[in-house]
Each structure stands twice: as structure tokens, then as C-alpha cells.
């Protein structure tokens, strides 16, 4: 089944990423942070306001989370973590990225579990190839241009896109390049950045990465950029800050949730760690809501 193929490919990418980081112990075990009890049915999951009120995440808890161990959690656990985060500052500069599917109660992959695990092969059809490619790029490395409220995706290897005939290039509109950690990378898929509504948790805003009007942005090229836009996949991502330099994201295609992802910048994370450990606070660019959030630091304990 094609959707299974998509899921397998995406999962394989995630697994590879996990294996690549198998050295650190905290990356290989699910993080020990509190969660509210839940069951499978949609209405057997706890209200996020209640989760946050009864099970606040301390700063120490946030430092138990890593870009890799989040993938070892159930989707509900990932959701409960996301809901207890705030947007934080809109990032600036290059970030590494990775997508992940949680292990899921059944052990199956989320993408194939739409409609209770049963839609496979029934109402699903055709063409995953282009999504495979998009998936490989959109939720990986990014560059944030905070002042312009703009984001571009970093593509290390244009080969697959070119071989699929999805890259338009001309002298009048040359591809943009950037060097990150000594590697040349291409910049594609521009998106707008703004503070906006989370499609999971309305209690405070998230940072939105919105491709709907990608064609309005400087450097837009019809192919492949339009694939992410309003006439393509209609991709809209939202992110919240786990801790400085580390964001947890949710990706949507045409308003349907498809995959989780993480963004991280080790330099920013390291530079801000001491202060954040002490205060538990950071700049907030977006509306933080009105529910009182408990800041639990080691000092506060």
C-alpha cells in the first residue's frame, strides 16, 4: 500500500536518525516526565488545561527531553508535552531538524493510523512519491530570519528533487545557497513566520511556519516551492519551545496533522542553558494566554 510506503520511508528516516544518535543514554530511553492518565478514545484524553494545572513540567523535566527521546513516546504523551510548552522567542538563524512518528499504542505508525488504523488501503490512494521528497526536506534543517519573519528550508542534496523534475532554475532566478557548519546547502521552500493559533491547543499561541502564501515571498520559485503552498500540500507547521535552542513542532497538511518534528541549535541551547536553568523563563514573542503557568526551577524547589 502506498501510504504504508510513505510511512515506512519516513519512519526509516526517523529510525536512522535515532540510530545515529544512539550513543547518549537519555536519547535511548523515554524521558521520565509526568503525564496525566489517558485512554485511547478521543474523549478519554485529559483536557490540556487540567494536564498543565496538575502536572506542570519543571525546568528539570524540560532538560530530560531530547530531540531523539521524544520519538520514544506515545503520540498522546507528545501532545501533553506540547500543550505544556509556550511559544518562546521566534527563532533566529539555522536550526537542525528531524521528523518523528511516536511509537503509538499499537506499535504502528501514525500516518497509517488515520481513522482508527483502518483506512489503510481503503480510502487512501495514489502518489506518495512527491510527499516522500517533501517530507525529507520540510521537516529537516531550516534557517530562520527572525527580523523578516521568514523561514527557508535547507536542502543538502538537490539530486532527488532534480531527478523528479521538481526544481526550476534559471539565470534570472538562481538558487540561493548558504553555508552551515562548513557545508553548502540550498535554500528552498520559503515560509512566513508569525504568532498564531495552535490547531491542537488553543490556550496560548504557537509560532506558525506557514507555506500558504509562499508565492508572495522573496526568492520564490514555482517548483518546488509551490508543493508546500496553498495550491499544493497546504503545509502549516506550528512550534513551541522546549527550552532555548530546542523546539517541538507539529506539521499539518491541509489542516490534518501528519507528523511531529523537532528543531534544535546546539550553540543557542548551550549558551542559554545556565540562565534558563536558573530562571525558567525566556522571551515570549507570542500571546501566552491567561492560564497561570507554574515556573518550577531547582531554586524554586
Amino acid at each position, binding site marked *: 500500500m502506498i501510504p504504508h510506503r510513505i510511512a515506512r520511508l519516513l519512519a526509516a528516516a526517523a529510525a536512522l536518525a535515532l540510530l545515529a544518535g544512539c550513543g547518549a543514554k537519555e536519547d535511548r530511553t523515554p524521558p521520565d516526565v509526568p503525564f496525566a492518565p489517558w485512554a485511547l478514545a478521543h474523549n478519554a484524553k485529559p483536557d490540556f488545561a487540567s494536564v498543565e494545572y496538575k502536572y506542570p513540567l519543571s525546568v528539570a523535566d524540560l532538560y530530560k527531553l531530547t530531540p531523539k527521546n521524544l520519538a520514544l513516546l506515545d503520540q498522546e504523551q507528545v501532545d501533553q508535552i506540547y500543550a505544556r510548552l509556550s511559544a518562546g522567542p521566534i527563532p533566529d538563524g539555522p536550526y537542525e531538524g528531524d521528523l518523528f512518528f511516536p511509537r503509538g499504542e499499537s506499535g504502528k505508525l501514525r500516518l497509517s493510523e*488515520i481513522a482508527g488504523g483502518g483506512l489503510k488501503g481503503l480510502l*487512501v490512494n495514489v502518489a506518495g512519491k512527491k510527499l516522500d521528497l517533501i517530507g525529507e526536506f520540510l521537516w529537516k534543517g531550516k534557517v530562520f530570519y527572525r527580523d523578516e519573519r521568514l523561514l527557508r528550508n535547507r536542502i543538502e542534496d538537490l539530486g532527488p528533487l532534480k531527478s523528479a523534475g521538481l526544481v526550476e532554475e534559471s539565470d534570472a532566478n538562481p538558487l540561493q545557497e548558504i553555508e552551515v557548519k562548513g557545508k553548502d546547502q540550498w535554500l528552498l521552500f520559503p515560509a512566513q513566520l508569525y504568532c498564531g493559533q495552535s490547531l491542537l491547543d488553543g490556550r496560548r499561541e504557537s509560532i506558525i511556519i506557514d507555506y500558504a502564501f509562499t508565492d508572495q515571498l522573496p526568492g520564490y520559485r514555482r517548483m518546488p516551492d509551490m508543493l508546500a503552498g496553498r495550491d499544493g500540500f497546504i503545509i502549516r507547521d506550528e512550534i513551541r519551545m522546549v527550552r532555548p535552542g530546542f523546539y517541538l513542532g507539529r506539521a499539518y497538511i491541509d489542516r490534518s496533522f501528519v507528523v511531529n518534528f523537532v528543531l534544535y541549535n546546539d550553540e543557542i541551547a548551550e549558551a542559554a542553558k545556565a540562565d534558563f536553568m536558573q530562571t525558567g523563563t525566556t522571551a515570549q514573542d507570542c500571546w501566552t494566554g491567561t492560564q497561570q503557568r507554574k515556573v518550577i526551577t531547582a531554586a524554586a524547589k
Partner: protein
Amino acid sequence: MPPVLPFPTPRHRSCLPGVNRGGRNVACRGRSINRFVEADMVRSFLAIVALAAVLLGPAPQLAQAASPPPGGTVHEQDIPYFEACAREGLNASECAGRLIWFKATAGNDRFHTYVFQQRVGVLIDWFRVLRTDERQDRFRAWGGINDPNCCTPGSVNCPAKSLDETFGLDWCPGDAELLKYVGKEGYVDPACDFRDAPLAEGDVHGPADQRQSACDLKFGTSTGMLGIRKFPNPRFDLDKWVKLNGRAGSWEGYNGKIPAAGGSDEPAKSRLLDGAVEPPFLIGTSCGSCHISFDPLNPPRDPANPKWENIKGLLGNQYTRISEIMVSGMSTNTLEWQMFAHARPGTSDTSAIPNDQVNNPGTINALINIPQRPVFANEQVLKWHKVASCGSKPEAICWCEPERDGKCWEKSIKRETVHHILKGGEDSIGALEAIQRVYFNIGSCSEQCWVNHLTDLRVADPQQRGFGQTPFDIGQCRRDCPNFRAIEDRLGNILDFFMSAEARATDLREARENAVRKLSLNARYTDQDLIADLETEFGNGAVARGRDVFANTCARCHSSQPEAAAGQFDALDFHKLDEKTGLRADWLGNDAPTLVSEVGTFRCRALHSNHMTGKIWQEYGSETLRAQPADPNLKEPADGGRSYYRNISLLNLWAHAPFMHNNAVGPELCGNPANKANDFYAMRPRYVDGKDLSLLPPEQQPACWAYDPSVEGRFALYKASMDALLNPDQRVPKVTLLNEDVTLRVGPRLWDGTEKEKLLGFSLTIPAQIDGRGVNAGTVGNFQHKAFVVDLVQAKFKPKEVEARLVQQWGEEEGKRILADLKGITEEVTKTPNGLVEALKKRPYLVKQIYSSCFAEIENAGHRFGEDLSDADKKALIAFLATL
């Protein structure tokens, strides 16, 4: 310089004792001296304010100089409201409640600017609705009532001279200050200067005043349409706006349609969809946005240019197209437009946003003579009660607000005396709570407490949040949303306003007397004059005969007198006054629930499910409500308190046609706006052929009636609607049909620029016509597509489970037939992945019945009571009801 408002003269001292107005004034009789003293205090205060206005010139200065009693500044925009309080004789609490009702948004500006668009996915084009260059067309297009104190920039005496100053909207009092903060932080909301009424005596949370800051009521300033309020957007960037739109006063780049690359079958988009664009204003709505109306006793000469004395707050706007406003930014071939823009003028589907997949627009209830409205004792109610402490009780059932002294609430189940509110009496835990729920249904506290509990129509996975509703949590919302507390702490004021003289009956006699007095100041129009005129039209003795017909035919439901309940119809006096309130004693409705199959009217509203256990408004429904047995005559799910309609009040029926909960019995109304893009009736005529429900050709469509809020316009509409009511066989059937093909999409899709492909999920295009027959738009809104998808999937993987469930619900034969068809669809779709529509077209009963929450179609059917009366008795009944 802002205009100085006229001195609020006590020229309408209609409620002062001893003043003979030459006719009945039921609202004034029996009132206590204290109320008159309070009213006079308000008037005295206003006189001081106004005197200061005259002496000091510009209103903002005058207000500050007036040094009113505690509370400080009186804003220029509030002066006409205080004037209205004086005119209506409202006391301090009633007046405070009025101001809140008209202006408080309780923070829903974020909902109507961000949440609805981004989270719910529905776009409002506020400029299309509020553009000042179409101010004269606003009532005709949207049914909106223009704020008398606002003006179009550049018009005579308008302080603003160009559209760029106001970003294309009206200029309104308070804007001199507000406009300074567009694009900046620091705006102080006028609500911060709201002067609270004294705390009610004996308030459990008193005697110290511990009310939440009035700033959280959030008034902003008027947009020019009453009830729609604006706030400066601190995120606004003028340079970006001008770059997008060409100039500050234009919204062309923001709301202009952008064709879809996929062709005209795909809905056109616009930058309204673009969350990165920050408009100059956040737009909020008060309860008044639907409830503010023209006064039947004193209608405006020109509905586009009313005066304050033409406006009332509680009768309900009979012309509002609030549903069309809410989807004004959507293309008409979207599911959202087809689902929302389904309501007749004066109605709204209040479960369209907290969607229960029951398409059911209903009228905005007219609030009349509320002190006489029936209450029901001994109903079982679980709710929060004010207490002074919680002791050691757990927080889940008892909670005290931090940093307050004994401001606590305890949740407990008790036997209570409550009103039955909403069409089926669903709001049934108390009047205060029913009032507060309105605020949440219009988006207040939506982010903190509401949207996480709503259904996302695109989620088809039963394990995902958003697959279905979960209950709104009152305790959590009180804790987490300051706007909740700001309203809750003042609910008593709003209820007092409901009980006030502003809700008094608006009788035809008085309306006609007002009309003749405009020609001759001392003219009178007595009860005898009214009866004489009615009998000239309806026959000698018609009113007296009509009384007998009403008593014996209608009063068993449409009377609140105990004699009616006891079947003693001869003893009924429908005009007698209540000694205590001075109001007409009979509320002309017993508010009791009646099975919808007995009433026979369009039943979808009665199947509304949001107050059931596990649904969004569970906490606002009583246990007594939910224990009502389901209507045994329905095939649709009808348990959990559903399948009833209240027996509504017939007070002032002359002014409130057309009839029934959906305004469907009687002529269709239309605004005939100059801007034909807003001519919503023309887009969607309703009359169909009774045989096959196909739309009648244009030449056979009965003409719609243009909005006419005049006394005689209302009366003419009343008579035509009564004719339709009493002669059901002569009604031309009405069905709201799809006017364009609509695509219902579940799951993501892909378009790669060369071919259309569905990547995941499915899309179901519902054509506007099938085999030459129109498709009921309600079918779309009522189709339980999630249940269908789940059954379809399980029919393949868990057929035994599905069969057992279907057989239990539909019986042995039908259940097995459904399962067989589900399996058949599964096989067909597996072979032909895009064949779902064709597969369903072969089995339309699945969409129209089995997976429909309501399969009624004729919207003006039912309530056939009285059809057997003689023509003379029908006329008599029409004559008599016009006197009530």
C-alpha cells in the same frame, strides 16, 4: 473635534408616577417608589454630565470634568446609553447590565480575528461587512443596525475626513483615542472606566467589592454596526498594510479573491487566510450584535439612519444575517459557506461553531416581560454555587479565587427552580448561567476554555482529539479566564436588565398611538380604537370571538396562567395585569416542552445535541432535561433530552413575524441591498415543488418581502404569516438547497500542478443537483461523515461488531442491509479509489437517513393547529392575537 452630544433631556418621563400618558403603560404600574428614585438619580447624574458637556465643549473633556460619582470618567460613547437608561427608567444595576449587554465582548476580539479563522478555518471579511462607504447599504445587506453616533469620514460634521484615518470603517466616538493605538501597545479600554452598580445586597462574595476588573469586559469602540466592536491591533504594521492594499483605507489586497490554481471548481482564496497579515483592528462582538433591534413602538423613519430612541436591546434583531457575516470571507462553494449561510434573516445556527452536525438555525429569542416568564421548580441541577469558603473540600468541587477573601464556588447537585431557555429548553441550570453561556458561544474565553473541546470536522480518527466534542468545564474557565470572571461577577446586572422595563411588551395599540402622535402631539389611540380598526378589517366581534378561539384552541400551550394548565379555559383573562410587576400577567406561553412530532414543525432544531452528556454544553443542561424520554415517533437519535420544543410566548406576535423557530412560516424576507454581491436571498430562493423538492422556476417563486420595520410593515407581515400558519395546505414548501457543488474533504490532499490526486483521506463532492433534483443543504450539515467513515472501515475489519450495532439501532433487516451496502462500498472504493461519490449515489439513503442527524426537509411544515377553524374564526384569531 468630536460633536457634542445632545443634552439627555428627560423628555421621555413616561414612567414617572402621576403622569397620565393617556393610555395603558403596563410597565410603569406597580413599580416601587425606590425604582423611581433610582431612575431619577440616574437622570440627575446625566443632567450633571450633560451640563458639563454644554459648558466645556468637546465630549472627552466634558466627561473628565464632570467628576461623576465613584468610577470616574464617563466616555462620550456611553452618554446615549445612559440617556436610554433614563428613557427606559432603569435603575443602576439594570443600566449597568444594559451597557454590558450592548458593549462587552469579554475578549472575543481575538476569537473573531484569529481563532475562528485559523483554528476553526472559517474566514470573516470584516471590511466587506463594515466598510463605511456602504454604510447606507449595511442594514439591507447584513441586517446590521447602524450606530447613530458613527459617521462616514468626509461626511458633514464627521470628525474624520478621509477613509485612511479610519482604515475604511466608520468613525465612532472614542476613536480619537483608539486610532492612536493602531499598531501600538498601551490602549486603555473604555471598560476600565465602567462604573459598577452597587454590589447586590446579601451577595455571598460581599460586602467588600471583589469583582473582577471591569477592564476585562472589553468594550473598545463601535465599528458603526451596533454590537460589533473594534480594538486597536498592536501588531498592525502600517507600511506592510499599505504595501498590500495600496493605502491605509483600503483592504483590497487583504480581502481580494485569489483564484485557485486548480481551477474554478476549487474555492478561490484570499489573504484573509494569511495569518501573517495583521489587520488594523481586532473585531469583537457583544451579545447585542444579535439582540439589539429596532423598537416596534418607535421604528426608525430610515432604517439605515436610526436614532437612539428607535433602538432596544432585548427584542432580537429580526433582520440580522449574522450567519452570512460569519462566513463573509469564504467562497460560496465551500462547505463552511453552505453550512453557515443557511439561516433566514433573524436566525442563527448557534451550534454551527460548536458544531454538532445538526443544521438548525433558530431565531434570536425576543425577551419580553421576563418577570412573567414561567419557571420550573424541583429540577435536578448540578452546578457551581457561590459560597464564602471551601473548608477542606477538594478543589474539584470547591474553589476559591486566589488573592480574594472568601470568593469561592462549590459544585453540587440540588433541586432548583429554573427557566427553560433555548428552543428546546436546553439551557436549564439557571438564568444567570444561561446568560453567561451566550458569551462563550460568541467566542469569549474561546482559547482558554472552548476550542479545545470542539469537534474538528476534518479529524476522522476516533482516537484523535477533535474527533468529537468534550464538555466545556465551567470551573476551569473561571480559574483560567479573567473575562469569564468579569462577566460572571456582573451577571446579576444583566439579569436585572432582562427583567427591566426595556423588555416590556410592545403592543400594537401603543405603537399606533406613537405613530399618530408624530402627526399630532396630543392624539390618542385607545384599546377601543384598536379593536374598532381590527374589526373593520376582520369582521364585527372578531376580537371577542378570537379570544374564545384562542382560549379553547391555543391556550393549553400558549398561556402561562394556571387555569390554562388546569384546562379552565373559560376563566382565562389574557389582558389582566400582574399586581406585583404591573406587566401583563400572562406570558402567553407555558415554556413547557412538547414532543417535536406533536408540534410537527421542522425538527432539526429539536435534535440539537450540544447539551447532552459528554457534549460541549453538558454543564449547562439539567439532569431533568436529559432525563426526558425521546420522542418515540422519530427515527433519528433523539435521546438525552432532545426531540422537544418549548411552547413559546406569543407576546407581541404582531411585531415578530414570520413564525416558528426558524422564521420559515410566512413570507421570506430579503434586504434587496444595492450591492448585489450581498443579496443573499437572491442567491438562495427557498420555494420548491412539493412533489420532488426541486426549486421552483423564478417566475413561480413567490416574491420575498423587503425588510420593513415600520408599524404597518410589521403588521402586514404578521397577517401574511398568520394566514400561512392557519392554512398549512396553502404553504408553498420551502427547502434550503445547495446553490453550488460542495466538496466535503476529510484528510489532506495533494495537487502537484499537473493532476489532482488524493493522497490521504477522501473527498466527497456533493452536487447541487442529482438527477435534476435539488440537494437539501441540510443534508451536508447533517451528514455524520465521521460515523460513516468509522463504520465503513469497521465493516471491513470488524463486521460482526458493526452488524450488531446496526441491527440494534435499525432492526434486523435494515441493519443487515446497511452492512451489506457498507461492504459493497468498501469493495467498490478499493477497486476505484475515487469512486466514493458514485458508490454513495447508488445508496442515497445512507447519506440522507442512516448517517444523518436529521432528515427532515420541508422547513415550513407542521404546527397545523387551527387549520380546521372556519375562515371567520381564523380571522378572529388573527384579530385577537394582534391585541396581545
